């Protein structure tokens, strides 16, 4: 059961990574990165329980916190966002 959950989280992480690499718009990538962070929290919580790491919940807590602050910073960046004129032809090349 736990293994299945970990596997599911890993698959979701791969999907989020694919979206972060391809993502046609910037917002897809932000959401993908955010999702990836959330999945990392879950992975650590699950993996820590399964593999008996010590104090894994501390780390998971810190991740959740850091992810939140990071997202706020990104939003703030786009609020200032001055150079969006190139936003359409950018991305993966």
């Amino acid at each position, binding site marked *: 059961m736990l293994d299945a959950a970990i596997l599911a989280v*890993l698959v979701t*992480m791969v999907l989020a*990574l694919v979206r*972060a*690499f391809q993502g046609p718009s*910037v917002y897809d*990538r*932000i959401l993908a*990165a955010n999702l*990836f*962070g959330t999945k*990392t929290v879950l*992975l*650590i919580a699950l*993996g*820590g329980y399964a*593999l008996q*790491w*010590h*104090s*894994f919940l*501390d*780390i998971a*807590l*810190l*991740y959740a*916190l*850091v*992810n*939140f*602050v*990071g997202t*706020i*910073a*990104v*939003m*703030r*960046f786009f*609020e*200032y966002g*001055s*150079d969006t004129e*190139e936003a359409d032809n*950018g*991305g*993966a*090349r």
Partner: protein
Amino acid sequence: MVLLAFLVLIALAAIRMRDLFIVVMLFSVYSLMTAALFMDLDAVDVAFTEAAVGAGVTGVLMLSTLRLTGRWERRPSHGPLLPLIVVGITGAALIYGTLDAPLLGDPAAPVQQHVAPRYIEQGPVEVGMPNMVTAVLASYRGFDTFGETFVIFTAGIAVLLLLGIQEGPETRPGRTAIGDQLVLRVVVKMVIPLILLYALYVQFHGDFGAGGGFQAGVILATAFVLYDLVFGEGDARLVVPPSWLHRLGALGVLLYGAVGLYALFAGKPFLDYSALAHDPVHGQHLGVLLVELGVGITVFSIVLAIFYALSGRRKAS
């Protein structure tokens, strides 16, 4: 293995991108991945630091820098062939060097033979701390940690010399659209006390579990960065004025040095904490607590000073 494959993929993607903003996002993912890898290697304290510094504050600082420098990377004027050859040869040499190194976790490796057994066997008796990492970092290797604290302090001073903390006309409280979001304001107001509490927990629980001064300082600074991001730059500066920060940074280093000097004047070697109390183990506890506090104060003030220095500037246009 899966984690390492993720890392390689993310690094390759980050190289190909010209949009530096996306590179920052990818790097924060990379950092989270690295920290998960450290968790897997059972290095909880390292994972802690990586998560707090690499994934959290570095991303925010890089975004602040991008805001000043512009978002798009220029095409390089030279071809990729020569750098590729140089990197290839260096990488091959490094891999060749690792062929001789012992395998990870090999009990016969020199790392496990030299001082590690003494730390593991004597540490709980001499220092009396459940968390061996803190015992080694703050007590046995106190001198090295003193050096690290100085490095952080010097880096902060250098940034302040180069950029300085400016009080632009736009650093007025409550002038951001993001600050108008009611849900965000309420959530942030509720979260910040928890972050502060968590930072204090990490600071003072470092003797027993993962954590310590470095991580706690960064987490504490993160709380103020969050406040600054949501409520505008003026308000956070009212709580912790920029003019205090370099003094606080110096205070942390001085606290660390003073503990060492006290031991020196008490007739013991520099940074020998057993001079602090009659009972050597008690002295060790007190010394590690003070030293970690100094580290925490320095890291907190330097990180916040760098953030102020970057966020206070406006793009020259």
